């Protein structure tokens, strides 16, 4: 993690991630907020690449940018005008204080702790190991996750489906 390229990439990507995240907070238009969210996701994908987590990075792009942001866009368009602004509620100041506190605590913990660091090189390739882990060690959570996805699919369809027209 010492090469100049990685350092530059980290700072650019971190700035992009945090900047986009801040823009999600401040912009007034929900669609712009989603654009900020997409920027955050993309920056995180880049950060994953610097951490040599290529599979996760690609999955991040595929799931978050390709699918979840679309869900957000759809939800915004399906709930017209009435609530398309991105205002804060009266909880703005307590939330700000709490968020700052949490950030402070987390950063303090991160800096103060001595981590049990390893000096292993970058992972040469992650996809096959992840696959093996998923289907050997973590096969039960894997199956549960697939059931969860099925439930989510069925649930969302049931929720949003228009009521069947009653026959007279």
């Amino acid at each position, binding site marked *: 993690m010492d*090469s*100049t*390229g990685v350092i530059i990439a980290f700072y650019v990507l971190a700035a992009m991630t945090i900047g986009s995240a801040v823009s999600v907070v401040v912009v007034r*238009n929900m*669609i*712009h907020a*989603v*654009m900020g969210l*997409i920027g955050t996701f993309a920056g995180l994908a880049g950060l994953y690449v610097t951490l040599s987590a*290529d*599979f996760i990075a*690609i*999955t991040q*792009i*595929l799931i978050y*940018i*390709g*699918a979840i*942001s*679309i869900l957000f*866009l*759809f939800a915004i*368009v399906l709930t017209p005008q009435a609530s398309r602004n991105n205002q804060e509620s009266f909880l703005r100041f307590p939330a700000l204080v709490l968020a700052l506190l949490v950030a402070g605590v987390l950063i303090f913990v991160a800096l103060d702790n001595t981590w049990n660091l390893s000096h292993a090189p970058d992972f040469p*390739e992650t*996809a096959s190991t992840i696959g093996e882990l998923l289907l050997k060690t973590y096969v039960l959570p894997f199956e549960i996750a697939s059931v969860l996805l099925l439930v989510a699919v069925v649930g969302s369809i049931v929720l949003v489906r228009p009521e069947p027209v009653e026959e007279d």
Partner: protein
Amino acid sequence: MTSFFLKGEWYDFRDLGNPVGGLLHDIDKIAPHWVVYVVASLIGTGGIVLWGVLSCLAFIWIERRVVALMQNRKGPNRVGPAGLLQPVADALKLLMKEAITPRAADKIVFWAGPVLIFVPALAVFAVIPFGPKMTLADLNVGVLFLIAIAGINTPAVFLAGWSSNNKYALLGAMRTIAMLISYEIIQVLALLGPVLLVGSMRLGDLVGWQDHYNTWIFFIQPVGLMAYIFAGAVETNRSPTDIAEAESEIVAGYHTEYGGIKFGFFYQAEYLAGFAIAAAITTLYMGGYTLWGAEKYIPSWIIFLGKLYTVFFIYIWARGTLPRLRIDQLMAFAWKFLLPIMLVNTLVVGGEVLIWRENDISDVTALTLIGLVNFFFGAALVIGWARFLGHGRGRQVGRRALLTQEVGAVYFGAETSS
């Protein structure tokens, strides 16, 4: 490859990676190491951009001429010899036109649309192996990268359509998203077949596998290839699935409001996406830059581009031939027809690979058997499932009009046998 007489010297232009490698080697002697990285990425990106732009210009001309021939017309023939400079003239016209932004449009998003759509179209080529040494970034998750990058299109299209504040654009954007999301699943499943066979997601490995066994996955995965070609047509908005920009229905879909160079971006991104699909088909299904040993004599990138353009030509051909489907028919085709077939296909390929690996079968026998089984099973599956859904032979035959001499008679609902 390098075992032939030139042995990969810098003047060996059968692989453009050789001269670039020689250049980088020389730079490495005189400059710090990071300069090599920068130069290498600049050469790679610049080469891809240059190739993309030139190919687009060429194929704008080829598409117009070829479709004109299919339609008893001459096509562009005024600018330059045989109209060859017509794309250049078009590009100049687009550049010089005023880039209008509608007053009711969301300015920022409206400007972001063309850029967002152009980036993934170009980024796909980073993982495509144009030759043995001609890959910008041979990721070990290359296949996934193809799909993920194509997925960025979806929000870009939506933002472009929504920000135009135009009803046709919004309809087009909604249609595009419904299509893209449905067919992304088909794409993933279609690409899973080759990945299962080869056991790697690195595109270089896929090409190497096909070279090693002297076969194309084309012959082993016919169903997957068909599904992928169709899904590719959907993704690049080409006939018969150009629903998103159906010009007879919703004018130009999500880029109705875009003019000038912004429209040019969409236009070029569409071509690049088409090339990307063709490149993916070439690499995954048609042996990439190899041609059963001929790559020793012919430059590998010429083989690759030849295959790519041949595949792309299929899309042009379809555009000149086929009418357009309706959006619900296209959706039904994805979810009711292609999805079950592709799921079964994946299962079958997985089983075959398992049997091949577990048992002591010679490669030739195994691949021949797998190919035959997949071909016949796939054909049976497609026909059987179509019958099951009620689209078998005989259901969709053309009817002719009844002929009668009797004035005033009513033949509504008459027998269809004639």
